[in-house]
């Protein structure tokens, strides 16, 4: 029983990270229709920036994280300015391929800047163990779950209780009507990419203390997050998070009770199952409803 609780906490905390990355996917997709294949690299970039500001330059935590947020915001803004805006009228496939190229570019650049050796970002989250009702749990995992909850609450308040959030939702819902209503849609799209980059970076910061920072850290997380989007319903914000947590749980339970070698196969089989039988996912709207 104790072991099951340990596994569940592990699964949910990993799922929260998948959920955050999936959320980044969904926000960008909702606003622009683009599936951002460089989302995983936002995760990696955020973590590397934190290594530089906190570990290499020795800046104290709060200002250091602020610097990372500014840096990632800038990265997100530059991305859409250089790799999306100039080709936004071109076929969607071209834009998606462009994001894949940016992903390769970011990975190679990171190799040149930070080198091939994995780096540690241990100071960000507590490293100790706590005992809750007789079960030994890493404090890090609980911190991830709590911090993700706080982030989601902040996002909810931003989107539903602030003017800029309202404008961004309007732009995502119907681009042309929003433009007709006088909303500066170009800026809203830019802001969405910034938010997507920040969410990726947040996932990277939560991931890094436990799993270290390396060039390829973003790739597998992004793939699982993509599966989470499909399971949760592509385009649905709560779906992204719920999908993420589900993927995290399925992963760890499959590894424990079925076979550790096939755990990814189980996850992606479930994703394929959803695509075939429940294509709109758990929370997704039917396409006809949206139109």
């Amino acid at each position, binding site marked *: 029983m104790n072991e099951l609780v340990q596994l569940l906490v592990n699964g949910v905390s990993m799922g929260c990270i998948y959920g955050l990355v999936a959320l980044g996917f969904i926000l960008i997709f909702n606003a622009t229709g683009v599936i951002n294949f460089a989302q995983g690299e936002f995760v990696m970039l955020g973590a590397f920036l934190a290594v530089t500001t906190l570990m290499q330059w020795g800046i104290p935590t709060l200002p250091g994280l602020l610097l990372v947020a500014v840096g990632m915001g800038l990265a997100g803004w530059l991305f859409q300015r250089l790799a999306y805006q100039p080709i936004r009228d071109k076929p969607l496939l071209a834009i998606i391929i462009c994001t894949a190229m940016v992903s390769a570019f970011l990975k190679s*650049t990171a190799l040149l800047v930070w080198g091939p*050796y994995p780096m540690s970002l241990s100071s960000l989250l507590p490293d100790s163990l706590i005992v809750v009702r007789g079960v030994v749990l890493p404090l890090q995992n609980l911190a991830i779950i709590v911090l993700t909850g706080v982030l989601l609450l902040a996002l909810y308040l931003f989107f539903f209780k602030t003017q800029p959030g309202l404008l961004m939702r309007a732009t995502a819902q119907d681009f042309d009507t929003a433009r007709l209503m006088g909303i500066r849609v170009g800026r809203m799209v830019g802001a969405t990419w910034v938010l997507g980059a920040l969410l990726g970076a947040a996932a990277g910061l939560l991931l890094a203390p436990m799993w270290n920072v390396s060039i390829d850290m973003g790739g597998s997380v992004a793939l699982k997050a993509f599966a989470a989007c499909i399971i949760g319903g592509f385009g649905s914000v709560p779906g992204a998070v719920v999908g993420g947590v589900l993927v995290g749980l399925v992963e760890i339970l499959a590894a424990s009770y079925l076979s550790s070698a096939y755990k990814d196969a189980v996850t992606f089989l479930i994703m394929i199952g959803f695509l075939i039988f429940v294509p709109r996912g758990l929370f997704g709207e039917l396409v006809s409803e949206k139109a």
Partner: protein
Amino acid sequence: MRRVTSVTTCATAVLLLLGLLGLPRPVAAQGDLSIGATVPITSPYALSGRSYYNTLQMAEKDINAQGGIKGRKVKIVFEDTSNSNTTAVNAFKKVMDTVKSPFVFLNSYTVQNLAVEPEVARAKVPVMYAGGGVAVAERGDAWMFRIRPNDEVAAKGAAQFVAKSLKLKRVGLMGVEGDFGQGGMKVAAEALKQLGVEAVGQEVYRAADKDMSAQLLSLKNKGAEAIVVFTYVAEPPIIFRQRRQLNLGIPLIGSSGSCLPAATNVMTAQDMEGTYCFTDSLLVGNPDPKVHAWAERYQKEFNFPPDVYGVAYYDGMFILKQAIEKAGLEPQAIRNAIAATKDYKGIGATFSFDQRGEGVHQVVVVKPKPGTKNYELIETVRSAQ
């Protein structure tokens, strides 16, 4: 607005390109002896590649400081193999076409060694490689020489250590998905069985996995008194930390990836407590003053500790030097001279090449001194020849 965008785009692109080009290595002069080396300089494979990219340059400098080979200055010509087999094969071909080197260093990735082997046979030049897969030697290509203990030697060495020195009866095995991890577990399980030790389970994980708690707990529940893990470099920090967090309470014996500085650099002494590592040799912390001095020199020049991959290529370069000085520059003669090398005591290992081109026939077991991240030598395990 569009014009600003395109100017910004162009400016950014140009600036980035300039930054990325960096400074190229100087071109070989007339009369220099050019030796080819196909090394992963880019992509995640650079994790190991960086190490021998550095030590080959170190060896080049040292040899030239001593007067070169037969009076000629040595120039190592690097080609990037990246993490693609096609790129690796093309890198080898490019080296043969442009440099016409009488010898080439291949890299430490078995998949790429296997992919390049047919080209080596076609080019008829001797090569040294550091991939661990037995499959490479099984090709029977007389031009290929391995400068590290192969995965079977390592796996059997670990099994022997666990059975004879730790005297355990039930051991868990864990390995990264693929030939190295799963193959290693199979060899270890067989070797353990012959020594009267039960392998209670063989758990697999994917190289990109970030959570191995399920596998660790599963082996513990099956009664493992220790766990032998076959890993690459990114996973040991996670596995070691999770073992401590899960309060597993049993020792972990990791393959050489787990004591590479690239891995220990991101571990804590706490996580490393109660673990062992089976690897080629001990570099940092070796009591031999020659080894210690070499390790210090590397650390000073490259700002990072050396590892067993790096030292293998450094030693390989000097073995090559000896072979050329003995037999001249004709590839077949160099090949025969390398094959005849016996009991060459390098900085890292001692080399004796056998019929299949295998050069190293032992592993060492190391353990971190309690409370520190510094390794000390526990035992040398020689494979039966």
